[in-house]
């Protein structure tokens, strides 16, 4: 019951690895035999501000490359949620890093302890992989094998092990949510 085209928006602060996450998602979709377009957007002031990476996944050619109304949204930071997380298509899924709730108590979406999970793994930098994996586990946007392959392809060898752990942790988090639903 995946939408076709499926429009995904990942968002967070500059430096949180949003673009790499989008690239891995796109690459995984490609592995799944689909067409993909990944775009990104950051303002010049956005080093710490909100940035986003969008992926359109489809079985057919994709004309317009950007996502106007996403089906899946993943937010890592408050600013990102406020700027990019409030819109979602009917029936769409929004996953939020749970600390966003602290700043925006009325935030709409499923919250997950993504950052805490990343920290537990030893490096907050893997937040993007944890989140992406959780999103995939919840929505089955792409196959897990493809995502694993994409991660292996895009990640520098020295960071691979840690990131594979993050991937699995993210899958686990996502499964928990999925079973909750």
């Amino acid at each position, binding site marked *: 019951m995946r939408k076709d085209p499926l429009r995904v928006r990942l968002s967070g602060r500059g430096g949180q690895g949003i673009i790499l996450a989008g690239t891995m998602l796109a690459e995984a979709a490609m592995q799944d035999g689909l067409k993909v377009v990944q775009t990104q957007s950051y303002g010049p*002031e956005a*080093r710490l501000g909100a940035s986003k990476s969008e992926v359109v996944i489809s079985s057919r050619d994709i004309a317009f490359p950007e996502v106007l109304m996403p089906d899946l949204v993943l937010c890592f930071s408050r600013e990102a949620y406020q700027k990019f997380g409030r819109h979602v298509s009917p029936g769409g899924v929004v996953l939020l890093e749970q600390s966003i709730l602290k700043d925006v108590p009325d935030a709409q979406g499923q919250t997950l302890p993504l950052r805490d999970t990343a920290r537990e793994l030893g490096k907050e930098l893997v937040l993007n992989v944890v989140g992406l994996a959780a999103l995939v586990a919840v929505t089955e946007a792409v196959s897990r094998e493809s995502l694993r392959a994409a991660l292996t392809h895009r990640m520098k060898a020295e960071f691979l092990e840690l990131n594979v752990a993050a991937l699995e942790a993210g899958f686990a988090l996502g499964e928990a949510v999925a079973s909750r639903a």
Partner: protein
Amino acid sequence: MPSVGQDLGAYLRQEMMPTVWCPGCGHGIIAQGIAAALKEVGTDLDQVVVVGGIGCSGRTPFYMNTGAMHTTHGRALAFATGLKMARPQLTVIVAMGDGDALAIGGNHFIHAARRNIDLTVVLYNNSIYGMTGGQSAPTTPQGSHSTTTPLGSIEPNFDAPTLAIAAGATFVARSTTFDFQEMPKLIARAIRHPGFSMVEVLSQCPTYFGRLNRLGEAPEMLFLERDQTIPLHDLPPVEITREVLVGKRPIGVFREEAMPEYTQRYRELCAAAGGVYDA
């Protein structure tokens, strides 16, 4: 007044905070140094213009509670020259990146120095192009990594003070963002100097230069600055050769010389022609 950490609130454009700079970027420390220098010099801020080029460093004018001119990449000194000539009573400070001042802007740099026009260049030298994401600069040490020198740079780098002196600058100094006590004082001295002055400040770019060369985070980079420099207390310029210093860059004042300043010479020219400049 406490000697460090003075109240610079009036010197900063609060509504532009927080800055665009990355966590730990040295540029904010330099900007603070400029503010502290302005405070020390005591000029009326209505009569100060901070001119910037394009680059992370070039954003400085936005954060100074003075006139602010954010110009084009490399050309800040050309704008500043016109500005200063048109209204010589202004104090004009030019904040430029190493790429900005020495790559695309190298020509304006040497010509402003040659004219000995009363501008103060603060050269934010982080050894890399920060704003565009970590490409090599003419200051990138040979062998260093950047996104355009993935195998290490094969180009020798400029030494900004040497170049400035050769071109004719009459006040030339170098400091670091580590040196938070000396650096603002050098900038103040440069502002007071009547003629072209240049203070190069070695700055850390943890996001690119640090990361690509595995130099650690901002605090580690700050200590590297300390370890890789050596104070030269007002040695005469003849002694400044890279060899002498075995890999350490000297910091301090390389040249401070009283020479006729350009707007002053222009004033005399006008007088000779029968005109009154800047009455």
